[in-house]
């Protein structure tokens, strides 16, 4: 036991006697471990944020769209699609939107050319759309039954459009849709599951029929299902909507796309891990190189130690321990840097910090392994030195 303690002491003193050199070779395992831990931590944190977002948005939303036969201009769903979908037992709620083609919206007078060239999509929407989407109203209110009953010319802006129009919260604003002025009553919050809604303006169904000539046939349906039935419902909805008729319907579960994004990060993670491993390996070469030179520089010390009774194996262990400490110390600092980096980036990006603490032993183990392998050759070389030659006797 006392021998182990002596060895550790000798190795440690040897390292500390050359602080700059020791620091240089610490960098390899340090950066290697930091980047591996950071790679996993950052991708997991980013994924964690996505998963939190997914949990918040719910994975039980289906978007059903009119597929349309090939070549048809504006494919639509049957007019009673919502009531047909509502009849499906696994459906909680459904809301429809209708695309109003050819409507030009003018937020300000005088920019007609621009807004004609780049029309903002206008959609007729059901009163319950926000509750189906589970999206908050950022400002004011959504379209409601009062609009239909009183025939109010109300319009709600998507969050992206509100920003583009420079709409201020609570501002009294009218925008011109074709030749009719509509009053802005609210702003819909961002819809991560269907970002196209962010860049649309919404009018009540009655106004769409009255002013823009829709026939009550929607283009999209947003459907909430009971949890666990989403995939099956998505598969059955086309039949439920078209009832075997000519209308083609496609469905998608948008949360699957987000989930796939979370998966895609695995590739990035692997690349970053490999980069970290590469740094570690190159760092190992650095350790081997510097330690080999060190053995030559310290050949007199080795000779002295042999003369005062240290055996070859003690000398080898001494240098191997020095190398091991480099891996241990570099790895430990790397762990701290990696954790710090994950916390820093996560706080900037508003991610939920996920650090694979369970994997730290793996990264440390790798750093130690590389350091020990790197130290093997110099240690053996040190042990094989002949004290008679290094002490220059006689």
């Amino acid at each position: 036991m006392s021998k182990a303690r002596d060895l550790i002491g000798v190795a440690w003193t040897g390292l500390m006697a050359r602080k700059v050199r020791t620091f240089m070779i610490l960098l390899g395992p340090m950066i290697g471990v930091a980047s591996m831990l950071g790679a996993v931590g950052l991708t997991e944190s980013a994924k964690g944020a996505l998963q939190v977002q997914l949990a918040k948005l719910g994975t039980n939303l289906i978007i059903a769209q009119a597929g349309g036969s090939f070549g048809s201009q504006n494919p639509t769903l049957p007019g009673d699609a919502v009531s047909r979908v509502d009849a499906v037992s696994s459906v909680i709620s459904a809301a429809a939107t209708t695309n109003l083609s050819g409507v030009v919206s003018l937020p300000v007078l005088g920019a007609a050319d621009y807004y004609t060239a780049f029309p903002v999509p206008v959609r007729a929407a059901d009163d319950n759309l926000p509750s189906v989407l589970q999206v908050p109203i950022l400002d004011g209110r959504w379209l409601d039954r009062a609009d239909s009953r009183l025939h109010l010319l109300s319009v709600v802006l998507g969050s992206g459009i509100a920003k583009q129009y420079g709409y201020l919260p609570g501002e009294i604003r009218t925008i011109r849709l074709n030749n009719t002025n509509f009053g802005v009553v609210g702003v819909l919050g961002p819809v991560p599951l269907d970002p196209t809604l962010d860049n649309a303006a919404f009018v009540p169904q009655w106004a769409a029929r009255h002013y823009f000539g829709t026939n009550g046939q929607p283009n999209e349906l947003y459907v909430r299902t009971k949890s666990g039935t989403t995939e099956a419902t998505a598969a059955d909805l086309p039949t439920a909507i078209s009832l075997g008729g000519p209308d083609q319907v496609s469905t998608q579960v948008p949360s699957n796309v987000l989930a796939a994004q979370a998966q895609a990060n695995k590739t990035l993670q692997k690349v970053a891990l490999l980069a970290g491993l590469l740094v570690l390996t190159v760092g190992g070469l650095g350790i081997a190189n510097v330690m080999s030179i060190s053995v030559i520089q310290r050949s007199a010390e080795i000779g002295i130690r042999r003369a005062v009774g240290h055996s070859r194996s003690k000398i080898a262990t001494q240098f191997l321990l020095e190398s091991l400490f480099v891996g241990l110390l570099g790895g430990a600092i790397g762990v701290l840097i990696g954790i710090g980096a994950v916390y820093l980036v996560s706080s900037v990006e508003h991610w939920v910090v996920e650090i694979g603490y369970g994997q730290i032993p793996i990264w440390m183990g790798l750093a130690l392994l590389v350091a020990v392998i790197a130290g093997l050759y110099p240690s053996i070389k040190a042990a094989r030195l002949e004290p008679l030659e290094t002490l220059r006797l006689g």
Partner: protein
Amino acid sequence: MRQNDSSDLESPTAQFPTIRPATVQPLLELEGVSRVYGDEVEVFALREVSLRIMPGEFMSIVGPSGSGKSTMLGLLGLLDLPTTGIVRITGHDVSALDDPQRSRLRGDVIGFVFQQFHLIPHLSALGNVETALLYRDIRPKDRRERAFDALDRLGLAARADHRPVQMSGGEQQRVALARAIVTDPMMILADEPTGALDSANAAHVLEIFAGLGTPERAVVVVTHDLAVAATAHRKVSMRDGRIVADESRAA
């Protein structure tokens, strides 16, 4: 205090129980030893040399360079093995031991002093002396005390924390002497111990040297300096790998 410490140094038989001969037998014995270097062209560095070193002897080995002094030093110091012949240290055949055993024996029995002092530059004087006590069953506190006492005996207590570069050559050589005696070895083996010192320091170190011998301990100085050799009681002269003279004078 001083009294206690030095007596402690002189009787550490509990620490080193291995090899205390009851009757007077040679400490170190070379029997028909040859050392040959080279594979294809054989160079005899030492040729059929026999030598006995007895406890209490103060011996010098002299000879011009190339006479085999260094080879002799390596063999006496257990740093090298003979090509033929037998080297016995306190009765053990050195060639029969493995490296850990031989290293242990070297650390226990022999104290080295070199011309170039050979202190470890990144260690303090105390650390250098302690190096000779590492890897033994000694508590760090006791090890430090013993090392400090050895330095104290050589008048270097105030220098214990100094590094080699902060000390004069004479002081460095005294640290090396402290390192050599801290294990209470049975043989001090010195290689030109005054070779790198000015005459004043050399005289001082030699004086210390002469006082290192005990009835149990042999002091062997390898040198080409005849003045140094003259201080010894026995002078072994070498030439061309052989012993050409072995003279003793009354102590």
